[in-house]
């Protein structure tokens, strides 16, 4: 009897300890390989879980390739050729990106528009020549803005003469989509790719399939302050906010997200919009589109397209789409989780 009892006790103890060790093991992240660089005018990084360093290098290289392909600051990029010649041939991925931009342009009633290149050059916010332009300069630049005149047939993109395309509001998410293709071929277990604030969460970071945590920057604080944290099992996240690039003059903030309608920085009460989607370009494009639209119409657009969103307004109210209500928590009690009334 004593023997059996002793055996049972030690067996139970063994199992309990083994389970504790195992569960901790399962919750320990895979070995990581991380690489950072500057590309697309921002910090880009790839952190690989359960894979090799080469995959991280390949991803950084592919982001640099994407920059060469679509940056309008690079003379022989396809966007520069398009702006110079009014039309250009592009690869299938870029043609798809142009179609996506055109689609969101029409769905957002013109709030998202890639033909604002001349307008953004005029303001040059965050650049060396940043200034408040004259009203007549803005009006002249606005005459060129018309996203509906972009046409994509097969792999040829055309614009109206004199228009200037800028893919700055789509390119980072697009680069994250390219990174996904590399990860699929690499056989790594998981990865986080950041192209500036556009994030790809791929696979898993440990064997227990714990969710990834992604902080949403506090739009009122410094870059190391967070408004809240999203717990996600994967996907793409992008944010647009009035704090990314801006200058201040006479106590007023002039930020880089310009209205395609009046040509001035958007001023509709929003501080930032974060989009969670299953495509990088979609999350990037919609974060700008929703920021320009405003809370009411932006919510409607996000809901209609089945993407999730976090809106933060100037009164520190945080609004979530239904799909995020169980996977977002605030980091600071300065913010208030507000209920959005749908009509």
């Amino acid at each position, binding site marked *: 009897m004593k*023997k059996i009892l*002793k*055996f049972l006790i*030690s067996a139970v*103890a*063994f199992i309990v*300890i*083994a389970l504790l*060790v195992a569960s*901790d093991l399962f919750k320990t992240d895979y070995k990581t390989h991380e*690489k*950072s*660089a*500057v590309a697309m*005018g*921002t*910090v880009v*990084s790839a*952190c690989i879980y359960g894979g090799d360093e080469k995959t991280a290098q390949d991803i*950084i290289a592919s982001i640099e390739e994407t920059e060469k392909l679509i940056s309008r600051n690079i003379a022989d990029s396809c966007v520069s050729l398009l702006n110079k010649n009014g039309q250009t041939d592009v690869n299938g991925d870029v043609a798809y990106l142009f179609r996506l931009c055109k689609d969101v342009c029409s769905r957002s009633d013109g709030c998202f528009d890639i033909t604002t290149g001349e307008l953004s050059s005029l303001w040059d916010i*965050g*650049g*060396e020549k940043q200034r408040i332009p004259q009203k007549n300069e803005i009006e002249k630049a606005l005459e060129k803005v018309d996203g509906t005149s972009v046409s994509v047939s097969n792999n040829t993109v055309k614009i109206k003469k004199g228009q200037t395309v800028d893919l700055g509001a789509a390119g980072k998410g697009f680069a994250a989509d390219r990174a996904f293709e590399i990860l699929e071929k690499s056989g790594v277990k998981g990865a*986080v790719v*950041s192209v*500036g*604030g*556009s*994030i790809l*969460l791929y696979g898993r*970071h440990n064997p227990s399939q714990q969710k*990834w*945590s*992604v*902080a*949403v*920057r506090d739009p009122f604080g*410094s*870059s*190391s302050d*967070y408004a809240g*944290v*999203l717990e996600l099992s994967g996907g793409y*996240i*992008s*944010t647009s*906010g009035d*704090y*990314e690039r801006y200058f201040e003059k006479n106590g007023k903030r002039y930020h880089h997200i310009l209205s395609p309608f009046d040509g001035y920085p958007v001023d509709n009460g929003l501080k930032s919009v*974060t989009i969670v989607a299953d495509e990088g370009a979609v999350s990037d494009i919609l974060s700008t589109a929703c920021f320009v639209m405003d809370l009411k119409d932006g919510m409607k657009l996000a809901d209609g397209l089945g993407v999730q969103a976090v809106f933060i307004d100037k009164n520190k109210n945080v609004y979530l789409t239904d799909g995020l209500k169980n996977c977002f928590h605030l980091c600071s009690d300065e913010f208030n989780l507000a209920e959005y009334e749908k009509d």
Partner: protein
Amino acid sequence: MKKIKKQTVGDLAVIACVIIICGLWFSALQSGGKSPIAIIYKDGKIAEEAALSEDRVIRLDGVVIQISDGKIRFADADCPDRLCVKSGWLYKNGDTAACVPSKTVITIKNNREKAPYAVTF
């Protein structure tokens, strides 16, 4: 009688194994928690891994980086926008700042501090 003794020895062996495994496990966890460092990237390559415990100044092409009181920052830079200098001090695990024109990135690694996997901004 002999049989029972064998059983006890077996039990002891099992328990000893468990204790050793646990010991190894916890020591592994402890050694994973190295003191905080800043990884400095220049042109996509690691230029320096600097311990934040030691105050010093690091000069790289185009930027001056300063470590003081367990924090690090771009103290000065040749770039026109000086956004790097405006980013201020970094000290939390995962904190990142960059000087885009000089292609310099600073990022904090602190295994003792929990951080989100990414930050969207």
